């Protein structure tokens, strides 16, 4: 016989007969691939765009010199310009400036202004050259002009020659929009001013953010960098362009990796569904395959036949998935932005680029997992002895081989071991491996567990009496657990992931909520409208605030960014009043701290966040050097506090120490506690009446809390979406496998109808089987999910974001989901069992082949 023709007939016949399962399997692969692919596309696009945008700001410089803090004295500029080997030194002052009228969006109300000397920068970053009106080229070096990128103009709703009002500290600055930055990247929201004008108008005289260097031809970069770094001393950081990229990559790496992992989990669930579809289809056709073997089809031919089916499914599903993923990515970028609403990549508008090699890679992954899902049942089918397989009732024996408890136990054991391993490249690789092994092991253990569990239930069941439906259902689940378990695998996988994510997110949310209470103890917080590192309140403004009545207590904070390691994102330094005797009165401390009252009086204490411990290796009791003040000074690590706000690390120190070391008496923030008889509205009104009231950002702590939680929820919106998709895939799996099994059991139902089982009893039987199975799946999924959530909470989160949290389980929510899932599974089983009561069923008993 012509093997290819037979192969085609068989494939086509099978698919025509079971198109629903085929469609389900296709969808499962497609959705899995689509999730993974779209997340990859979005992440890559957002990251590349963010990186390109950052690069366009620094142009084609060879080296960058920065201070440890955000700004440094401009005296370095002539020194570097004349430094041997330097072809060009480009001084840059960069400020994030608050835009009046945009404050309601606290996360996104700043405009980045880059101050450049155009005569220097045009040779290194020509994209930053403003386009003036004809004849007004001197606007580029004027003191009252600003140039805006198209995205910034759109955001601010202004155009050329309009006046732009910006906050500078406590004052308002008016600038004329002299033109555009036509070469800014799409979505890049930046402004360019003359560096002298920016220094003057925004009260930053005498300081620079960075100096970009272009070296003379033939200068050895590495040697130059080393020499310069040693000449400049530890107050400065000399970084290459690659370092900058690494820094940017570091900033969002944890976020990107975690999102990718979630996408892979969706793919994993899809894979499992393919496996179950193929396995069931193969088992259902055991007799057909046995016949083929009897007719002279070789093992290899049979194997090829089944693998071919899988391959076809894989190719079609993966292609569908790629198309779907691309579409989803396009939509998501448009609707949610490149960071899916998390603000990890602010101020860019990335475009999705179809990248053939990556698409091929994902196609390969899709095909590979599908093939893998087909090969295992195919091997079993090919190995089966035809004579034995011809007999009915041997299906479950066949399935038994697919799942040995040993394999499952090994998976679980290795998973347990992996939870003990440290991160790799600061990523929780082993944590994720442990999660997948837990899932694989859990699913593999499922048949065994199902059989044992229902056997023991059956033993306790009043055997030969009562409800025949439950007896039949239990007997089936107890004695044919493998097919049942396969149906359950998808549900188990998706539900356990859902439980895990729900527990993790809830734990995180509850922890953040109580943390917010601790870090925002005051009633009202007042910042100057200018940002971060510009100390907004000079001493006289502080006195004006302190002189206000109606407040019990007012604390002033000085915050700024500090570079500890040029390869890492900056850390945040807080200088504020802290209870020196017991920091727990001020900060959300972990247990890791010096005994209260034991700080030597001559030591300057600092309290470091958990991220600092992980990233920089500082320990409580250590004496560390920090670049605070003119030179580096020694500080005593007095404790570790919990910080969910800054994953790159934060350090708290005493404001008095800070002021003594730096002489910088300005502060950024005032935390104010109301007197009992003052309302927050009254307080706000008083603050607004200050001479500089208009330039203040005033927030109630309740608003800040609400806002923070809103941002939190938005960040996890994508996670919820992924979970839902995983569950839908799981339900699709239940539908597919139940309808497959109903078909396989058609004779059984036919016989039962003959001997007097009612139609509705058949329905009840199916619903009972589906329901019981799902109930077990939910219970098991809960256990598995709980275990996974432990890994997420105690391993993945601390390792990737460097924060710890306590465990909180959202019982009500999980119960609701469980009930919904249970009902949908029973319903699914019912719907897919419609055929079990059709007229053909009756005839099936007599239509033996």
């Amino acid at each position: 016989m012509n093997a290819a023709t037979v192969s085609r007939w068989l494939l086509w016949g099978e698919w025509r007969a079971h198109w629903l399962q085929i469609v389900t399997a296709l969808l499962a692969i497609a959705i899995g691939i689509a999730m993974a692919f779209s997340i990859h596309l979005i992440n890559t696009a957002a990251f590349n765009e963010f990186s390109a945008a950052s690069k366009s700001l620094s142009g084609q410089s060879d080296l960058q010199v920065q201070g440890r803090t955000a700004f440094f004295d401009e005296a370095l500029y002539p020194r570097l310009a004349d430094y041997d080997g330097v072809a060009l030194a480009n001084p840059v002052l960069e400020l994030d400036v608050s835009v009046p009228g945009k404050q309601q969006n606290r996360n996104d109300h700043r405009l980045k202004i880059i101050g450049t000397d155009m005569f220097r920068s045009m040779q290194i970053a020509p994209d930053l050259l403003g386009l003036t009106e004809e004849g007004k080229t001197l606007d580029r070096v004027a003191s009252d002009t600003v140039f805006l990128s198209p995205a910034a103009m759109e955001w601010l709703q202004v155009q050329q020659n309009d006046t732009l009002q910006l906050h500078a500290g406590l004052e308002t600055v008016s600038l004329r929009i002299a033109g555009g930055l036509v070469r800014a990247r799409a979505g890049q929201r930046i402004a360019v001013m003359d560096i002298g004008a920016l220094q003057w108008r925004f009260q930053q005289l005498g300081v620079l953010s960075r100096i970009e260097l272009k070296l003379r031809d033939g200068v050895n970069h590495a040697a130059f960098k080393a020499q310069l770094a040693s000449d400049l001393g530890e107050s400065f950081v000399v970084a290459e362009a690659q370092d900058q990229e690494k820094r940017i990559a570091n900033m969002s790496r944890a976020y990107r990796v975690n999102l990718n992992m979630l996408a892979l989990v969706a793919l994993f669930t899809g894979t499992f569904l393919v496996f179950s579809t193929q396995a069931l289809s193969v088992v259902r056709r055991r007799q057909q395959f046995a016949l083929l073997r009897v007719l002279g089809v070789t093992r290899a031919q049979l194997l090829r036949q089944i693998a071919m089916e899988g391959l076809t499914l894989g190719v079609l599903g993966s292609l569908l998935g790629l198309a779907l993923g691309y579409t989803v990515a396009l939509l998501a970028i448009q609707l949610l932005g490149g960071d899916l609403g998390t603000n990890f990549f602010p101020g860019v508008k990335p475009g999705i680029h179809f990248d053939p090699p990556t698409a091929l890679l994902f196609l390969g992954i899709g095909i590979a997992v599908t093939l893998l899902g087909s090969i295992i049942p195919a091997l079993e089918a090919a190995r089966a002895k035809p004579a034995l397989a011809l007999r009915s009732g041997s299906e479950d024996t066949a399935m038994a081989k697919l799942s040995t408890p040993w394999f499952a136990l090994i998976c679980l054991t290795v998973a347990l071991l992996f939870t003990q391993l440290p991160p790799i490249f600061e990523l929780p690789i082993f944590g994720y491996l442990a999660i997948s092994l837990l899932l694989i092991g859990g699913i593999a253990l499922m048949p065994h567990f199902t059989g044992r569990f229902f056997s023991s239930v059956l033993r306790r069941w009043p055997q030969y009496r009562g409800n025949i439906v439950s007896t039949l259902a239990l007997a089936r689940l107890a004695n044919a657990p493998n097919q049942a378990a396969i149906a359950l695998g998808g549900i188990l996988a998706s539900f356990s992931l859902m439980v895990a994510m729900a527990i993790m997110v809830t734990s995180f949310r509850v922890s953040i909520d109580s943390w917010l209470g601790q870090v925002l103890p005051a009633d009202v917080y007042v910042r100057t409208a200018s940002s971060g590192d510009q100390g907004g309140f000079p001493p006289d403004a502080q006195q004006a605030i302190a002189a206000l009545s109606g407040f019990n207590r007012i604390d002033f904070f000085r915050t700024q960014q500090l570079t500890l390691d040029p390869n890492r994102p900056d850390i945040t330094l807080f200088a504020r009043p802290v209870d020196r005797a017991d920091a727990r009165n001020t900060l959300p401390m972990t247990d890791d701290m010096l005994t209260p009252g034991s700080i030597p009086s001559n030591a300057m204490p600092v309290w470091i966040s958990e991220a600092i411990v992980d990233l920089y290796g500082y320990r409580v009791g250590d004496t560390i050097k920090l670049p605070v003040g003119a030179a580096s000074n020694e500080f005593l690590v007095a404790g570790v506090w919990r910080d969910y706000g800054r994953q790159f690390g934060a350090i708290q120190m005493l404001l008095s120490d800070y002021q003594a070391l730096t002489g910088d008496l300005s502060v950024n923030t005032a935390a104010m506690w109301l007197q009992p008889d003052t309302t927050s509205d009254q307080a706000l009104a008083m603050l607004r009446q200050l001479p500089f009231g208009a330039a203040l950002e005033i927030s109630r702590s309740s608003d800040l809390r609400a806002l923070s939680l809103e941002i939190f929820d938005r960040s996890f919106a994508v996670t919820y979406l992924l979970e839902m998709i995983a569950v839908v895939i799981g339900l699709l799996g239940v539908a597919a496998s139940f309808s497959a099994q109903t078909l396989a059991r058609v004779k059984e139902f036919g016989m039962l109808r003959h001997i007097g089982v009612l139609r509705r009893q058949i329905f009840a039987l199916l619903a009972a089987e589906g329901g019981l199975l799902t109930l077990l799946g939910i219970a098991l999924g809960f256990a598995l999910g709980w275990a996974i959530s432990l890994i997420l909470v105690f391993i993945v989160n601390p390792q990737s974001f460097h924060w710890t949290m306590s465990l909180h389980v959202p019982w009500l929510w999980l119960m609701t989901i469980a009930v919904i899932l249970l009902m949908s599974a029973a319903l699914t089983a019912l719907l897919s069992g419609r055929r079990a009561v059709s007229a053909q069923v009756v005839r099936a008993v007599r239509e033996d082949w």
Partner: protein
Amino acid sequence: MLELRHITKGYAEGRKVLTDLSYRLPAGDYVAIMGESGVGKSTLLNLIAGLDTPDSGEIVIDGAAISSLDDDAATRLRRERFGFIFQAFHVLPHLTLAQNIALPLLLNGNEADARVVRMLEQVGLQGRGDHFPRQLSGGELQRVAIARALIHRPKLVLADEPTGNLDPDTAHEILQLIRAEIKANGATGILVTHSHAAAATADRVLNLTKDGLQAATPGGSA
């Protein structure tokens, strides 16, 4: 016991299978029905079992017109008064032999009692009630099916080619067993078969043709 009154049955595609078929089967009789393939033996069995309804005519069993019952009533009638034996045995693989045999009792709301053990003994499977079907040969599976068909003392046993999957020696044993059990339980029996040897184990042999059911001449061809 069983009365067929002017039964006509056709199918959607327009093929008439049975036309105005009438027959009366007295209680306690054990008859064999033979006939060419496609003449309507299976259709007739489905109609008698209430699994299908005739286009016209009436089927009365033990005074009840099963052909006019709805599905539930017909099913209840079936579970109480019918016993079925199939060519492919149809023993549930995930139930033990005892459980399989006890099914009709449970369906009728009775307890599975000593009858199950006795029935196992009667069909020659004593002591194997805890076994699963996969451990059994074809002949043994059909013994289980016979036990299941008779455990609830049905009035009417329908056996559809019960030895089609068995070797001649085993077939003979099984046919003898069916006959013996039908007689022992005082039931009425209908055996549908192609085999003259099998048909010979019944009290009488009927030929189903397009003209209806007629007694076969002894020794004559079908």
